[in-house]
């Protein structure tokens, strides 16, 4: 039970509890806010896995960007006459059953397949410069295609969102 395992369970809780709130809370604004906690838990998990640049990216893009966008959308799409955010009661039995069946399958696969893990316990090395080298050499094509995808998303979203 080293410190890493201890922190793993803490960050797992920080990720899962807000995610449960986000899925089951009737008020859409509180659901959006609980995502804030869950994204921080995922950032903590990334740090434990030694991916420090990915953890900072997670905080920057998800918390600073996507969550701001979702909250903007939630506030823009509110009904006009000050009605509260109540999400009509939709019976949630079927999704939960389906979800648990799916979870059962996933857990069976995870626990039965023999993963050839290489358990290394030396401290993780900083990753940013190695990521940069990989992006410039091995993953150059996806890197250049990324800008085309961003361009398409940018122009598409602006055309849709620009009020005539």
């Amino acid at each position, binding site marked *: 039970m080293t*410190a*890493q395992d201890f922190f793993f369970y803490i960050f797992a809780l920080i990720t899962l509890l807000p995610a449960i709130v986000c899925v089951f809370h009737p008020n859409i604004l509180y659901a959006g806010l609980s995502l804030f906690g869950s994204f921080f838990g995922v950032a*903590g998990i990334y*740090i434990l896995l*030694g991916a*420090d*640049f990915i953890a900072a*990216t997670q905080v*920057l*893009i998800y918390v*600073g*960007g*996507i969550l*701001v*966008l979702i909250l*903007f*959308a939630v*506030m*823009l799409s*509110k009904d*006009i*006459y*000050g009605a509260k955010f109540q999400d009509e009661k939709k019976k949630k039995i079927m999704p939960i059953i389906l979800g648990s069946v799916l979870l059962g399958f996933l857990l069976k696969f995870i626990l039965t397949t023999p993963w050839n893990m290489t358990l290394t316990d030396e*401290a*993780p*090395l*900083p990753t*940013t*410069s190695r*990521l*940069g*080298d990989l*992006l*410039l050499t091995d993953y*150059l094509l996806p*890197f*250049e295609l*990324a*800008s*085309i995808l*961003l*361009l398409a*998303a*940018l*122009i598409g*979203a*602006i055309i849709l*969102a*620009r*009020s005539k």
Partner: protein
Amino acid sequence: MYTQFATVLIFLIIGAGMVPLILLVGKILRPSNPDPKKLTSYECGEEPVGGSWVQFNLRFYVIAILFLIFDVEVVLMFPIGATFRQWMISQAGKGLLVFAEVALFIGILLIGFAYAWGLRPPAQRKNHKPCPCLNF
């Protein structure tokens, strides 16, 4: 690496705990006699009119779109920024090739930025010139 992030974690915990602590100190020391008059929302003295969940148009949303797209671009560029100097100093020959890769990546996105910039709302093309892509 873990010790540095442990310090950051402690900083975040203390930072998060500091605000309730300050407010608790405040709650103990200060008077608290809430009367309905005080608790209405502040409208320069007049009676508050209608709920505040007013609805507004999409110009804030266009800003958020532009921000998120260019944020992702900056994130993809940071690992390259971290190794750019090594590439420039060591493989002297391929320096310009690496620059060409980076310039291509940014150039394609500049096209999107030029599009967002050149967006004139048809009605007010001549006289009033609002900020084009955000038509304020």
